[in-house]
């Protein structure tokens, strides 16, 4: 589902049934409980206007807000073999995939795009937590490889937004093998001396954290994002004690030297431009070009 259908649908609904308030017109902030009007929330990049809680944002919405004028071109990702292990749990894996595709309107858990931010050409790749928890399988690996290859070919920096519950268990060992595979992609960027910026968003866990998401030249996280290898529940079960408040959250990782910065989503675009232009030895961005481009047209 892209941002257009996201916002248009409630409006059309309201025309037909004025008395009924469509359920999806309002979102309750899971942090502070404030009821937020969809339009307002979207204009604020899915950050709660009352408490600054950063909610999930789809790759398409993220890119619309990131690229100049919301314009970007998708980079094609080579399709892997579907269901390489013929995996089934309570459901067959292809059925789960289809359900996720239907729910999100996306092909898989990763979107690759190129375009300009404040006239700085970049390749960007964003993981979609709403697609099977953003889990990493062959497609995600292919997407990162495609993004790195495109960046190298065009001599552009790569900006990656991570969000994942971990590995795509339905791809078994092949999901695990995306750790070395995506690391090869990062190496391609490094050898080409191209900046690789990672923005860790809530949540980034497991093998994703333990590969490409921790190998950036600059590591930025969104506020309060959970970033870990082993999740807090597993740790609590293992050590049989309660973990301290804020454990494995972005600010905690910053304090422990694992991140460069924790940055509010609304300040991210400007920060990325500033960093990228310095790392690529370009003059400062012209002030007018830095104005954030809200998703709203």
């Amino acid at each position: 589902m892209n941002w257009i259908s996201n916002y248009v649908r409630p409006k059309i609904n309201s025309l037909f049934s004025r008395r009924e308030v469509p359920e999806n017109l309002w979102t309750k902030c899971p942090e502070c409980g404030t009821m937020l009007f969809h339009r307002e929330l979207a204009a604020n990049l899915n950050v709660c206007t009352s408490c600054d809680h950063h909610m999930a944002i789809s790759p398409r919405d993220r890119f619309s807000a990131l690229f100049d004028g919301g314009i970007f071109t998708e980079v094609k990702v080579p399709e892997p073999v579907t269901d390489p292990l013929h995996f089934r749990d309570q459901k067959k894996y292809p059925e789960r995939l289809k359900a996720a595709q239907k729910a999100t309107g996306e092909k898989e858990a990763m979107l690759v795009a190129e375009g300009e931010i404040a006239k700085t050409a970049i390749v960007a790749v964003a993981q979609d937590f709403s697609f099977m928890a953003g889990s990493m399988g062959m497609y995600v690996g292919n997407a990162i490889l495609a993004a790195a290859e495109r960046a190298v070919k065009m001599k552009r920096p790569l900006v990656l937004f991570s969000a994942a519950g971990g590995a795509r268990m339905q791809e078994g060992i092949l999901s695990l093998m995306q750790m070395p595979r995506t690391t090869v992609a990062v190496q391609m960027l490094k050898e080409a001396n191209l900046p690789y910026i990672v923005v860790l968003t809530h949540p980034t866990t497991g093998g994703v954290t333990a590969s490409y998401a921790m190998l950036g030249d600059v590591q930025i996280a969104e506020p309060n994002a959970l970033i870990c290898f082993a999740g807090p529940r597993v740790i609590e079960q293992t050590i049989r004690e309660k973990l301290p408040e804020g454990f494995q959250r972005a600010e905690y990782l910053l304090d422990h030297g694992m991140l460069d910065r924790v940055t509010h989503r609304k300040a991210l675009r400007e920060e990325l431009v500033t960093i990228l232009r310095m790392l690529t030895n370009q003059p400062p961005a012209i002030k007018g070009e830095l104005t954030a481009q809200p998703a709203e047209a």
Partner: protein
Amino acid sequence: MNYLEFEKPLAEIEGKAEELRAMARGNSGMDVTKEAEALDRKAEVLLKDLYKDLTPWRKCQVARHPDRPHCKDYIDALFTEYTALAGDRNFADDHAVMGGIARFNDQPVVVIGHEKGNDTKSRIERNFGMARPEGYRKAIRLMDMADRFRLPVVTLVDTPGAYPGKGAEERGQAEAIARSTEKCLQIGVPLISVVIGEGGSGGAVAFATANRVAMLEHSVYSVISPEGCASILWKDAEKMREAAEALRLTAQDLQKLGVVDRIIKEPLGGAQRGRKETIEAVGKGIEVMLKELSGKKPEALIKDRRTKFIEMGSKGLAA
């Protein structure tokens, strides 16, 4: 002898044979040879039958068998002049990871591996083979050294996975694993890896991103434990048999998927019943794999590893 759950019928027969022999030893007039030998034959038939076609879940149990040879046993038997090199120069020495320089058939190499320990005391000291960030960082340091002095690297993988502990997370275990995998891909020397027991998730990948990966016949290598997978996907940890099946974590399936290059045969009844033979077979495997890679230029070795992982999985089970 420790018996696994599915070996119970075998335990009964072997126990009876042992009992008979013990009785005869205490009673000089008694001859039980015939009966005991009959039981031995029965046991062997059963053993063959049990191990003929192990299910994935049974393989997991065999792979975790406490009597299997562990990293230290292989190092002691197959390497000479093993000189342990400790510490990550940063925080601590991780006893779950053994590492150092040694000779393999007189050739100096760097050897690194997970050690699970073999009694309560050593298991605790080794943290059951679950490395903390310091273990990966020690490995990175040793791989760097190997690269500088042109020594091949041999890794022995046997871990349930990375340690889900507070300190391990605090000190950046995700980053440590990522860097170790990255280092595996960077070194210009042969890197070969043998999964000798459990290849558990990221903790295994950090050492096994190698030019050649071998697995012992009944070892397993997986993104998650069958129990963990069952509790997430089946919402029932008791469904580990189904999960083990679905995950394709056996050496045989992994070879079909192109993840593993070589399977090293285990004696009848698993490595735990023939420790010496198993260790020798692993030694042969290491020898062959090192030979395959000897004389290759650093750039060729790096390229070989990269291409291998980029292409991995492109054909699924049809590979």
